[in-house]
Structures are given as C-alpha cells and as structure tokens.
C-alpha cells in the first residue's frame, strides 16, 4: 500500500456545501420537489406483545382525501427475514409502537387525522421489557450474542482472573449502568417514495444508499437496479440511519399502492423513539485487581444488554477493554437478553461509548484506591503490544494524549482530595479518562474517476455526507490522490446511480471510500502513463476501482486513542451540575480537514456530556414504551449546557492504516467523556455515580 502525499489534505477548507446549508437550500430527503404528492401516516400498536384481533378502517377510509388504508390484510407480501422490515406482514405484535396500519391521503393533515380513526383491537400477552429483571438469577434468558465485527470476538479470556483478583493487593469490583439512549437526529427519518414501471425511486434520509437499495430490492423481490436511492444531504443520523427499518419499507409499500405518485413520509419525533433504533441500556460489571503500585494483574469486564425478539443487535460494550491496558489475566463477556422491545441499533461509538464509561470509571476508582494519580495509573499500565491480539499497534499515542492534555488542562495543580474546591456555593472538580476507537474499514465500496481533457475529474461514489464533512474531506483526498487541485475535483455522492459504497459508520468513511478513490486514482495514472502518454484523451478516461485489501491488518492492531478532561461544578445545596470546561486530546492519524475534523471531535465531546448528564429514554415497564418521547422530555444538551470546549490532536504518521494515514474522527470524541465527567463529579463531591445519567437528585444533599 502506498500512501499519498498531503497537499489538499491538512487544509482547513470551509465546507463545500456551506453556502447551501446556511440558507436552507441544501435539499434533505423530504424536500425534494415532487408533483402531486400523497402523504403517509402510520398507526402504531398500543400493546407490547400480542395479536391483532380486528382492524376497523371504515371511519378512516370514509374521510375525504384518504387514498388507502394499509393493514396486514392488504399489504404486499415481503420477501425478507429481517423482522424489523417485515411491516404489515402478520397479526403479531412484537413491541409497543410497531406499525400495524397506515393511511395514505391527499395531505399530511388528512393522513394524520385518518390514522387516529383506525381502530385496532388486540389480544395482548404478558410482556417482558425489563432488562434489570434479567440480571439476578435469570441467566437462562441471557445468551452470548453473535459477533458484530469478525475482528473482535464477543468474549475474550486469558489467564485466571478469579485467582488474580483473590490475591490482588488492591481491588475494584463495581457495577455500572447506562440507560436507553435515543439518537434524535434533528432531521427525523423521512422518505419520498415513487413507484413507476422502472421500479422505486427513494429520496431518503440514510447513512448508506447502497445498503438501502439492497434491503428494499430484496424485500420487494426486485433487482437492485430497479431501486434508486438518492440522499444528497442528511440531517444527522448518528447510527440511526444505517440499517433500513420499517419506515422505508412502509413508504415503498405505500408508493406501490398509488403508482406514479410520490408518497411523502416523515416520522414524527415521537414515532422515532420506537421505530428508528436506540443504544441499548447496559448493566456492566468491572473487576480490576492490582498491586499496591497500581500495576494491573486482572481486568474483567462483563456486560448485559438487550435486543428485540425480531432481530439481534448487540452493542459490544466490552470491545475496547482488551485494547486498553496490560494485565496478565483478562476477560470480557457479553450477554444479551431478548425482550419485547424494538430492536436497538448502532449509535455513535457503539460499544465504546457505554463500555468505556464503566472501564474508565473503574480505573479512576482504582487510582484512588492505590493513592495514585489517575494519569500515572494509566501510564503504568500501558501495554507494549496489543494485549489480546499480541500484535504491535500501528500507532498508539495514548500516553502522549494524556500528558499533552494534562499540560494544557493544568492537571498538575490539581489537589486530588474530594470536595477540596468551592466557589460561591459550587463544588468544583476535575476528571480524566482515556478514549479509544478501532480503525475500521467496511467492505463493499467502489469509486469511479472520470478524467476529462480539460484537467477536471469527476469522482463518483455512492457515499453519503451525514454532516461529517465527507463531501469536503473526500474532495481533498481525491485531489491529493490525483495530485490535482481541489478545484479540479467534482465529487458526486449520495446516489445509487454512482458506484456502490459502504455505509457512513464506524468512523470508517474516509478509510473505506478514500482507499477506493486512491486505488482508482492510482490506476488512472498508470493507464494514462502506459496507454495515453500521460495526457487525458479528448473523450476522457474512466476508471473504477474497489477498496483494496490492506495487508497490514494481519500485522498490526489499529486504534485511535485520546484523553478526555472535564471540569464540573456541582451546586452544594441543589445538586445542579454544570460542565464549564472540556478538553480532549486525540491521536487519530492524519487529519484530512482540521476544520471539519475539529467539529466532529467537538460534537462527539458534547455528545459525551449529553449522555453523562441529560439523556435517558424512560421506559414504562407496564406499557413497554419510552414515555418521554419528545425533545421537551428527552433532553439533549442545549447551547447553555456546553461551556468552553478545547480540541487538540497529536500529529500522527501511520503508514499502515490506509493510503491517507487517517484513523477516523467521528466516534472517538464521545468515548470516555462520561467517565471523565463522573470522575470529576466524584472529585467535586465525593459521590461516585455509577448509573448514568448523573442527575441532580443523585447529588442532592439530604
């Protein structure tokens, strides 16, 4: 693998779509202009598990302007084994809020009102939605989930953890838990679906047009060429728009029933809570054993999570643990409970976000137990090679990040005594935690480059820009791959008319797509040199290439690292919590665009704050649904919650990860923040919170 020379890469270019976005002219899925649209509105189940015994759609159908009412009686039969996609296929209900009918009407107002008139009767059965009830003595309901990524086994074991714990001079053995989190991208899941003789055209808010194309084609027994998916701009996604879900299938079904007419479908904010996935709640136990010098002898991390009965999704919360610290005895275990709930899905840093809260809180507890500075404790346990894979790291700068962060944050002035700092009724504390995220590449991308005789290059790939800055960063990658200027590049994405691309996820976008563009550029240059004497022929030249294999994957462990610092203030009398300062230092390989990358890391850190203090989907165990299902009740951080945020990175030159030397910046910003804040809260108050979110009632003096 040859690396490319950065010229455009490293430049802090403004977003190429900035001028459109600030005026509101960038078109999101629902905004594509269409003639004479119909509108769709779903009816959701009001029982968590059971059977539909009757559907009366007469009142709805009688409303002027109603075009059709879809139920399992009249909906087209689908060909898919994906339980989340099998919408309106039977009388069975598997979770509260599942779609049981839908109305197509002339206007959105009519569709919504008519949907409220569809009467559905159920024979409900006893449901089980309580993950906590699965824990004590109920292991028979739990099982080890299937692997999420083949590289990372669900369970790992080395040495004898129990024996090492028994003989450890210092021990930490605690349970940590994280709640059910909901993505809440500001743009809800939206679709405009149109069915014609040629097949489906879907304007869709998605992280992966290629995956949606395949999923819809299969469900409707079509050739993928009969499904065109277009997604030029996406109003946030954070994992919730990776996999196709019932909404897109329902929109396609509706389009089939009014051929030639575009059907517009936007989930309400409330509906997104049951229909678009979520980060599953976790209950985690971490055991750490160490000598009195803080050197770890045992690390054990177990996590219990939930999935639905329709489909398995397991958040791999213990995934990061084997990559972090040296210890001769180590174990990780992952269990999943099948409950009568919607299926969870990927959410920003799936696994690491929740898992590192537990591990890095436990490391703080160990540091205190050992009387060591928490940074020093981490440095003492820095491994020489990857503890589990026993491979060298392609680059690992955790210690540099911790030291650089400590210097910038002013860590050396810190008095480790809890409750030592007070100002105007506020207790002040600081905390630190480590961050990591693997360097991943997703399969299935191709890029086409068309060179024309005027020195311009069209770069085509069905990638998407969900707000990460892909459009800008990939243009910079393409410029360097082609040894051209940014102005010569015309990057086109977000459309299955272009070569297929892996979904935007796992911080793998630039790695997966950029490598394909580099490969195409390489071949283009070779073809030009060998067949065209170095000049582009008058009718242009086109090359398509796949993301090549990376031979170094077997030789190196590839991870990003970072250090998160936070200052918190806790009001002595009310328990109110503020975070006036966050600082992160990251080692994520080459930074393609310092401006957009900084925004990614900054956004991730604010996500970390939000998951620490604000967010929690509250499940009502009796009904089986999330009751705080709107943005007034499910709090995401507001402007006033975010204080000064500093983002820094370490220059890293990693020749093994990909031709660009990039490691991904989308996820690592959130990782470790919750632990840094919980650790700071302990420092401020002497109260250790192991159950997120950290709300004022948990800190309120009696």
């Amino acid at each position: 693998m040859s690396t490319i020379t950065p010229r455009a890469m490293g430049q802090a270019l403004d977003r190429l779509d900035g001028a459109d976005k600030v005026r509101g002219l960038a078109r999101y899925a629902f905004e594509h202009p269409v003639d004479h649209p119909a509108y769709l509105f779903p009816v959701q189940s009001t029982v968590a598990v059971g059977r539909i015994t009757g559907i009366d759609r007469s009142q709805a159908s009688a409303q002027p302007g109603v075009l059709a009412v879809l139920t399992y009686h009249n909906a087209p039969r689908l060909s898919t084994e994906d339980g989340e996609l099998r919408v309106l296929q039977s009388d069975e209900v598997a979770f509260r809020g599942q779609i049981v009918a839908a109305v197509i009407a002339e206007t959105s107002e009519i569709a919504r009102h008519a949907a409220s008139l569809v009467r559905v009767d159920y024979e409900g059965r006893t449901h089980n939605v309580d993950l906590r009830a699965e824990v004590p003595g109920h292991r028979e309901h739990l099982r080890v989930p299937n692997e999420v990524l083949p590289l990372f086994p669900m369970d790992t074991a080395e040495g004898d953890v129990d024996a090492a714990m028994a003989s450890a001079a210092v021990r930490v053995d605690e349970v940590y838990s994280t709640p059910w989190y909901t993505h809440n991208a500001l743009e809800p899941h939206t679709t405009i679906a149109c069915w014609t003789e040629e097949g489906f055209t879907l304007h869709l808010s998605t992280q992966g047009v290629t995956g949606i194309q395949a999923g819809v084609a299969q469900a409707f027994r079509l050739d993928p060429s009969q499904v065109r998916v277009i997604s030029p701009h996406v109003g946030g996604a954070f994992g919730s728009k990776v996999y196709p879900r019932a909404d897109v299938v329902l929109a396609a079904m509706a389009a089939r029933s009014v051929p030639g007419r575009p059907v517009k479908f936007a989930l309400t904010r409330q509906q997104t809570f049951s229909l678009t996935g979520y980060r599953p709640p976790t209950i985690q136990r971490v055991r750490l054993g160490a000598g009195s010098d803080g050197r770890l002898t045992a690390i054990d991390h177990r996590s219990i999570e939930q999935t639905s009965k329709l489909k398995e999704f397991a958040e791999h919360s213990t995934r990061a643990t084997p990559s972090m610290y040296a210890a001769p005895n180590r174990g990780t275990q992952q269990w999943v409970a099948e409950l009568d709930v919607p299926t969870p899905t990927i959410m920003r840093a799936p696994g690491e976000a929740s898992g590192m809260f537990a591990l890095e809180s436990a490391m703080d507890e160990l540091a205190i137990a050992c009387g060591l500075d928490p940074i020093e404790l981490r440095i003492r346990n820095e491994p020489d090679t990857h503890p589990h894979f026993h491979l060298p790291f392609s680059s690992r700068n955790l210690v540099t990040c911790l030291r650089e962060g400590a210097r910038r944050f002013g860590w050396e002035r810190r008095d480790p005594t809890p409750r030592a700092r007070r100002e105007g009724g506020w207790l002040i504390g600081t905390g630190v935690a480590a961050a990591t995220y693997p360097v991943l590449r997703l399969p299935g991308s191709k890029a086409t480059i068309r060179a024309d005789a005027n020195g311009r290059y069209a770069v085509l790939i069905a990638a998407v820009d969900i707000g990460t800055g892909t459009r800008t960063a990939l243009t910079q990658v393409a410029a360097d791959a082609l040894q051209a200027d940014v102005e010569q590049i015309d990057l086109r994405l977000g459309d299955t008319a272009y070569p297929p691309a892996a979904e935007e996820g796992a911080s793998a976008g630039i790695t997966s797509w950029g490598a394909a563009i580099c490969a195409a550029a390489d071949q283009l240059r070779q073809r030009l040199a060998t067949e065209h004497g170095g000049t582009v022929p008058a009718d242009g030249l086109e090359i398509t290439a796949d993301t090549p294999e990376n031979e170094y994957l077997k030789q190196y462990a590839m991870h990003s690292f970072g250090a998160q610092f936070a200052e918190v203030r806790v009001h002595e009398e009310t328990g109110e919590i503020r975070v006036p300062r966050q600082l992160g230092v990251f080692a994520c390989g080459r930074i393609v665009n310092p401006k957009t990358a900084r925004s990614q890391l900054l956004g991730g850190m604010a996500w970390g704050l939000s998951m620490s203090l604000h967010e929690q989907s509250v499940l009502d165990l009796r009904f089986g649904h999330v009751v705080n299902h709107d943005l007034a009740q499910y709090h995401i951080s507001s402007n006033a919650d975010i204080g000064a945020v500093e983002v820094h990175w370490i220059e890293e030159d990693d020749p093994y990860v990909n031709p660009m030397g990039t490691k991904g910046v989308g996820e690592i910003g959130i990782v470790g923040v919750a632990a840094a804040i919980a650790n700071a809260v302990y420092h401020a108050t002497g109260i250790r919170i192991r159950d997120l979110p950290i709300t004022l009632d948990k800190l309120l003096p009696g």
Partner: protein
Amino acid sequence: MRTFRYERASTTSGAVALLAEAPHGAFLGGGTNLVDLMKLDVARPDLLVDVRRLTSDRVEELSNGGVRIGAGVSNSQLAADPLIRRRYPMLSQALLSGASGQLRNLATAAGNLLQRTRCPYFQDVTTPCNKREPGTGCSAIEGHHRDLAILGTSPECVATHPSDLAVALVALDAVVRTEGPDGERVIPMTELHRLPGAEPQRDTVLRHGELITAIDLPPLAFAACSYFRKIRDRASYAFALVTVAAAIDVVDGVVRDVRIAFGGVAHKPWRAIKAEELLRGGPAGEDQFRRAAEAELADARPLAGNAFKVPLARNTMVRTLLDLLEGPR
C-alpha cells in the same frame, strides 16, 4: 388533528359570545401549547376563536401604584418591560427562565397561565389519564413521575402546573380579570388554579367561555428586590423540577413581610402560606428559613420517583431567601 372552525371577533364580548355557543370550542392565543396539544389529539376543539390580537398588548401603570398586564402581551415583551423589571424582577426572571426566545415571542401572558401539564401520560393518548379522560386512571402514580407533584396531589392525579409566570404572580398576589358569558369578574391568582381532587380535568376555576383580559399586580415595594430561582435538568429550555419565587422585607434583622411561592411541586402554583406566617415578625436567618421551608413541606406526599423534590424545594427556598438577604454570593 381534527378539523375545526376558525373565527376572529372584533371585541372581547363578541369572542365570548362565539365560544358560549360552542361547548367544545377554545380560545386561541399564541397557540404554543394549544396547537401542540391539538397535534397530539389531546385537545380536540371544534371551534377556535382567535383572541391573540383582541386583548390589550400593553403593560400599564395603575393609579394605586400597581401594574396592569394586558392578556395579549407577549411573554418576551412582558419580561422586557422596564416597569416589570424594576418593580417585580421575579416576574421577568420567571418568564425568562421558561421556554425559549422564540416561544416567548409567540406566547401571550394569559396563555402562559392556561398551559396544560407536561405530564407524559397526559400528552400521550395511548395511555390512561384522568386529566385527559376522566375515569381512565392515573398512569403517573405507578409510572414515570419524576417531574410531578409532591403537594396537594390526589389519588386521581399528580400533575404539576408548568407555568413559571404563574408562580411569580401567585407570590405577588396578582389577580386576573376575566370576561365571560356571565359578565366580568376578578379572580385572585392564588384561586385561579385548583388542586386536582376528584376533578383533575379542571385546571382552573374558569368557566367555559371565560376569557382572561388582563392581569393586575398590586403595588409591593419590597418586590423590587425579588428572585425567581428555577431548578431543572438542563441549564436552559427545560421545564421546572422546582422553582421558588421570593421577596422578603427585612428591617433590623426582623422579617416585616415575605412572599414565597413554589412551582413544579403541585397542580397549581404553590403559595407557601405556612412558611410566610412562620417567618413574618421573626428573625431572618438560615435556620428560620429552613424551619419555615420544612413546615411548608411537611404535608408533602412524594412518590418513589420524586421524593428528591422535598429536600430540593427546601434547599432552593432557603438559598433564594439567603441570596435576597445577603446578595448573591
């Protein structure tokens, strides 16, 4: 949302007359809560009588030294009004701690008082709720009630009233002026909102078709130094867990007069009568404030998920009074 007839009237009496004939009709002010509830199918009016431009949008000084607030004054204008800021700062603070700049621009003063509870079950027609559908049961008592009431609850309902403005008005002994099918009347703010009792569907004592036309604030010199303190889960743009509106008049260490009201703790803004009585005429100090708060909260009947509101309300009241006494730390 069900469809409805939309009407405007040229006079308040015309508006009242229109609604008198429509038992399922409603007045429309800024719409920030009513339209919200109509989308959720919680409110189902068949007639909307738009009164947004009908009532006064001015804040005027009264001859007795008090202030009259037109029902149509926007929340933003009211919060920014120099008279209000100078004489009743807690009122301005209460408004500014609620909602957002955009919502405050749309919302009217009267509409603010007539908001419905943000209890999650009230807002979700797929769950039982006595306030929305009397007789169906209260989902909150055994369910999610972190934000809900600890004082004056009934077995039928534990909802809280969401208005911050109302809490300040109750503390200031304001009155609302109304015009209804039976004529005009004046209702003390302390009596406008009711406890749920057996009829949680009724938030206020207003009769159908009775329109709030103005809010009158009596003169209260010591309110010129007053505070509204809001405790919530987010630093801004969130409903209250607990609020305290307070003003205190201390001369030579003795409490001459005091006004205290709690929000976020009951079905109505909660005037802390017992605490005020205990404090009046006695020494001003942290211990006294604490004892007064404890006396006021002695009747609290919290649920499993909101017991924290008792110490929170106590500590917030003590801190607010201390801040008034000592100036902010």
